[in-house]
């Protein structure tokens, strides 16, 4: 279920990105990851997310036009994992 994956992903993202002062529950799954009003992630964080997807889900992200859509929010990452993880 995507809700379970979002829950898991929020914790993994906080750990991988070493985000401090924020709990998984405080991460709005629909909020944009970049810019104001979201997590305000930077380029190094994206790199860490790419590592996370490879390490935890076996998904390799190549630089592509779809990248910003995949990394738009926690929910969009979860959806991408659901659609692309090898069964």
């Amino acid at each position, binding site marked *: 279920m995507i809700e379970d994956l979002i829950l898991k992903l929020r914790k993994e993202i906080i750990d991988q990105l070493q985000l401090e002062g924020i709990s998984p529950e405080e991460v709005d799954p629909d909020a944009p990851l*970049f810019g104001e009003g979201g997590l305000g992630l930077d380029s*190094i964080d994206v790199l860490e997310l790419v590592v996370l997807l490879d390490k935890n889900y076996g998904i390799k992200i190549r630089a592509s036009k779809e990248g910003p859509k995949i990394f738009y929010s926690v929910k969009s990452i979860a959806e991408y994992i659901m659609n692309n993880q090898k069964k």
Partner: protein
Amino acid sequence: MKFTLIYPKWKKLRGQTEFHLPPHGPVVFAAALPKDIEIKFIDENLETIDFDDQADLIGISMMLTSQVKRGWEIADEYRKRGLPVICGGIATMLHAEETSLHADAVFLGEAEGRMEQVLDDFRNNQLRKIYDYLTDFPPIESVGIARRDILKRQLYNYKGIQMVDLFHASRGCRFDCYPCCVSYLGGRKFRPRPFEKVVEELAAIDNNRLYIVDNSLSQDRTWEKQLFTEMIPLKKKWCCHPIDDDDEVLDLAAQAGAWFVYQAIFDISDFIRNRVKRYHDFGIGVEGTILLGLDHHTEDFILRLIDFLLELELDLAEFTVLTPFPHTQAFEDLHGEGRILSYDWNDYTCDKVIFQPKQMSPERLQDLYDEAWKIFYREKPQPYRMFELFKKVIDKEMDDGSYRGEQRTQTKRKFGREKVPS
């Protein structure tokens, strides 16, 4: 002798992700100081100045017009305490007269071979008010290996990623571009450093990622080819200003580790489209630099230009507003026509409209400038584009075995500071 060298802080470009590179001018200058001088370097962008710290002589190195007012404040503060101050650097040359009001001495020009005399004068209490070597260039062979050992390297590290080190392979520029003051500062004669010195210095830099700050590498094709050929074995990865559009040159540049190029996007043309494509064809990224506010820039042109940038598939874009720096043709023209609205050098940050544009109001140009950043980064946000560009250099390093990984001990720090909790 204790010599404290200060690099004053300035306001960074609005809209751009914050970054701090290790300054180049101060480390090149430091190489021109005699070996027995004890240098303490302070980059005020990242450190606080302790004005009560002991020193025999204070040096203030200024690169940008937007640094000078802060530099003068610092000079005044030290002189109040009885410490002598000497100012130098590019911005000192552009603002020599004003700077001399705040300093015991100003040094204009290139420092190699001249500092022994200056320091002797200081020791003999005969420091001159102005040392003017502006058009008297020292032999290029006398440029020593930049003293990067005076930098606190951990300050130029972002979450474990070491920022690029700055390096120069030549001085002077054969071009004389409208908004640029390089021809005034370094002359129009291209002055390449000897290849053996270039290679020696490059090899000594404890960083695989560099920014070659030469004004344009497109000065002399034979030189360019040899430079890249010499660089190939070093496996450095680097960004730079334009490279000649020539198959052999671009191929050698790519082999030598060209990562991305700052390329001015000055019109909507097949020439520009092809220029960007050619870099990409050779695996070299492109950060477009876009100057807004020239006299022929109408509102419609600027909006079409932004659309064009998106078509070009630039890796990054940096927008600036025409800024009439002293000793440029832009200053002469705008000042002569009474169109400069501010002579407050703190406003000369390249993101503020400080002149009367020809085709629109200053407010409209300011709005278009802000819009340009927003539109360009709307679909692909700046952090994502920077990630892509960063990934390119990692891939290149992985391919040739030069990837060093990040510095794990620094992952919780941004430019020397503790990471601010999200």
